[in-house]
């Protein structure tokens, strides 16, 4: 399951610059709103599902080299966060669904690591 398919199936909004999402294959996922837990738990290539939308999630995602952040419940990052994400090559995706729903959908799609 590549990222483009995930974006299509979950109807996610892409907040950062478009790129070759079909060439990115997320290896699994991690869900938490606590940044220290994400630092410890998320792995390179994971999707990170959170309702945090402020600037610091970009640094955490970049350090962990996660494949993308899925921001839930329509939480909206500000312009500076999106600009920084573009600069650092971090993909920001957004959805009105809850973290719980997104986790369930991803699990159904076979993203289970």
């Amino acid at each position: 399951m590549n990222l483009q398919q995930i974006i299509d199936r979950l109807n996610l909004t892409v907040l950062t610059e478009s790129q070759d999402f079909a060439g990115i294959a997320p290896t699994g996922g991690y869900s938490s709103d606590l940044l220290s837990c994400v630092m410890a738990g998320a792995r390179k290539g994971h999707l990170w599902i959170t309702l945090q939308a402020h600037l610091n999630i970009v640094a955490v995602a970049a350090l962990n080299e996660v494949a993308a952040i899925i921001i839930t419940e329509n939480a909206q990052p500000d312009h500076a966060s999106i600009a920084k994400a573009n600069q650092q090559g971090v993909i920001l995706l957004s959805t009105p669904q809850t973290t719980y729903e997104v986790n369930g959908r991803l699990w159904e799609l076979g993203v289970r690591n």
Partner: protein
Amino acid sequence: MCPPARTPTEQEKHGRHGRPITDQDAHDISRVEELSYDLKIHEVMTADVKTATPDMPLSRVLELLRLNRISGLPVVENEKLVGVLSLEDIVRALQKNELSAPTSRYMTREVVTVASYDSIVNAISTFTEIQLGRLPVVDENDRLVGMITKGDITRGILVALQKDYKEEEVRRYRASHLFEDIISERTTLVLRYTIKAGDFTQGGKASSHIKRALRRLGADPQITRRCCIAVYEAEMNLIIHTTNGGVLKLEVEPHRITMSATDDGPGIADTEMVFQPGYSTATEHVREMGFGAGMGLVNMKRCVDEIKLESSVGKGTKLLMRTFIPDHTVGVSRDG
């Protein structure tokens, strides 16, 4: 048909797009786009060009085209470009059975050229405007100095990208052998970062610089990752909890990496409690941002081999962490 006399190009006068570049522009420019401005036409063109003269019979030109497998060539008189002749022109001559006529009778005199000193982006836009496969290149005196095709441009960009890639490789190679040529009893590379209290906008910046440095030094990815988690937590603690910020320091030696975070207050009352998972003194505001999970020091302890926390209330805190490199390979070649 001739380029303007050698006046400064728009780019030389004003930078890209004829105006100063903003930071946002700079982020948006890809390396290939950058190269299309940096590379000059004379760097990628073919300089060895077959030419005809105005008085050359068309039959002779046809022979030149056939032998060199090309579909057209520039016509030159006294080193100056006076026209181009293509196969289509020869076909027109054939229809009138005039293959012995001089080139000047059938050549195209209105020639689109590009200047050798311009950036290849000019050639790209000219190619887009006029549907031609090749363009004559002239110098500031209107002398023909070469021909350029789209293929020349692609090749030039690829060669430049390859050079970029090699330079990064060399940089990495040099950094990963940093300590080998420096003879001392103990060589240490010290990286120091001043961290401001409350400056969440810069949170993680020092850690990402440290990550890049460790990679260049050839540190193992697992060790790099562990050090990064530890310094990120330390960096965020300086931002979240200190009165005046502090200093994050990394001392790199081939056999170990020492990380420290030092501040001058407020200090920690109980240096054992902070190692309890979930214990936090963060404010509600900070917790809302996802910090203050009470996992910071727990994370650090998990990621390093040694950790020491010294603090006194009202004076400040010093956190020291160490990670040992089993094969002593940071900044030293693995095969050496």
